[in-house]
C-alpha cells in the first residue's frame, strides 16, 4: 500500500448537490442519481484534486483521510 493513498467520504445528509466536487475531481467524485455526491472508488492517490474538492464544497460535506492512519487531511481548518 502506498503511503499517499487517501479515502474520500461524503456526508450525504449535508450534501446539497452543487456538483463542484465532481467537476474538480471527476475521477474520484460523482453525483449519484439522487443528486448527492459520492466517492467513485474506495481509495485514491489524487490528493491535490480531492483536497481542492473538499475545500471548495459549500457545505463542508467532503472529508479526505489518510488511508494508512485515518488522519484527516482535508478540510484542514
Amino acid at each position, binding site marked *: 500500500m502506498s503511503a499517499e493513498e487517501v479515502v474520500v467520504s461524503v456526508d450525504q*445528509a449535508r450534501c*446539497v*448537490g452543487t*456538483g463542484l466536487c465532481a*467537476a474538480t475531481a471527476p475521477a474520484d467524485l460523482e453525483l449519484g442519481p439522487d443528486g448527492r455526491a459520492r466517492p467513485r472508488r474506495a481509495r485514491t492517490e489524487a490528493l491535490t484534486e480531492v483536497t481542492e474538492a473538499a475545500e*471548495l464544497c*459549500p457545505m*463542508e460535506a467532503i472529508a479526505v483521510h489518510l488511508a494508512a492512519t485515518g488522519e484527516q487531511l482535508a*478540510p484542514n481548518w
Partner: protein
Amino acid sequence: MSLDHTDPSAAAPLVPLHCLRAAEAGPPTLTELMTGTPVWWVRRHADVRQVLTDPRLNRVDLFAPDAPAITAYPNILDDPDTILNIDGADHQRLRRTVQRAFTPRAIERWRPWVASVVDDLVDSLAGAEQPVELVAAFTRPLPVVVISRLMGLDGLDLKRLSHWSDHALSASAYTPQAVQEAMLDFGMFGAQLMAERRRNPGEDLVSSLVKAADEDGEVTELQIIKLIIGLVVAGHETTMTTLGNGLVFLLTEARQAWQELAGDEQRAATVAEQLLRSVPLGDSTVSPGLLRRAVADVEIGGVLIPAGAVVAADSFAANHDPEVYPGDWRQGLLAPPSTPHLTFGAGPHHCLGAWLARMELELALHRLARRLPELRLAVPVEDIDWRRGLVTRSPQTLPVTW
C-alpha cells in the same frame, strides 16, 4: 420611479411574512405563471430538492429562443449573462472564480470583524433617542457594510446602491424601461470596477475574481461584470430582508425566543437557521417558486414532466412539508432543523453567500438581543410600512423602543 397600479397587491394591506401560510405539499400540479405560461408547481421537500439538483432541469433553457414567457417584469434575475442563468461547465467555471471566498472556512475568518460591525451599530442605536428606526440603523447598514468591505467598495454612494438594488429585484415597482436603465447604469459601475481592479488589484473579492477569470481565459467580460453586480445586490438585499422579517416576528410573537437568543451565540445560530427555513423572503406573487425548464422528460414525485415544460420549485412549501418538518415551526425555534432546508436552494445554483448570511444573522440577532432584551416595536404590527413591488418583501421602516 412610476408605480404600476395594475398590481392588485399594491394597495391591499399586507400581513407580516411569518404569517404567510405555505402551500400544502403534494404531488406536482399544473398551474399558470402570471404570463399565462403553464408551469408544474412542485412543493414536496424531496421533489423540490430533485428539481434543483437534477441536470435534466436547468436555467439556461428558460431563456432559449423557443422558451415561453416567464415574467412580465424582467429584472436582473432574467439576464442571460448572470451566473444564475448559466449552467453546466460554463457555470462551474464562473462559480469557481468566487467559490473559495465563500467556503465556511473563508467566511469564518470574517467573524471577529463582522461582530465588531454589529457591536458598533448596536452601540450607536442603543445610545440614540427613542424610537429608533431599525432598518436605517441596523438591518440595512450591516449587510451593506459587510459586502462593501469584502468587495472593496469603500466610498460607494448608498443612495445609488439602493436605487440599483431596488430596480434589480423589481417586480411591479418600476417600469421595464426604468429597470433597464438602472441595470445599464449598474453594469457600467461593474465594468469600471472590473477595469480598475484589473489594473490595480487589491486583497478584495472583486480583484480575486477578476484574476481567476482572466487566468481561466474562457469567462466572458459580461459574465464577470454581471457576477460583480450580482454579488453587490445578493450580498445585502436578501440578508436585510431576512433580518427585518425575522425581527418583526421575534419582537411581536416570540418574546421568549428573543430572551433565549441573547443567551449564547450557538443558540442564536439555531434560531437564525429556523427563521431562514420558516419565514419566506417574499410573497411569491411573481412566481410560485424557483423556475427551471425540463430539457428531457423527467419524473418528479410520480408525475411525468415532459421535455420543454417549465417547473417551479416552491422552497417555502418544501420547508414546511409536514413529512420532513412535523409540528408548528414557532414551537421549534431552539432546535436545529432535522433536515437541511431549501431556502438557499440546492444543486449547482445553491446560494453562494449562504454562510455569510448565516453568520451575519446569528451575530446580529444575538448581539442586539443581548444589548436590548426589552426591545419591542413602537408601532402596531398592522401599521408596518412594507417595501412593495419587489421580488422580496421586508419592512420599509421598523420603529422600535425598549
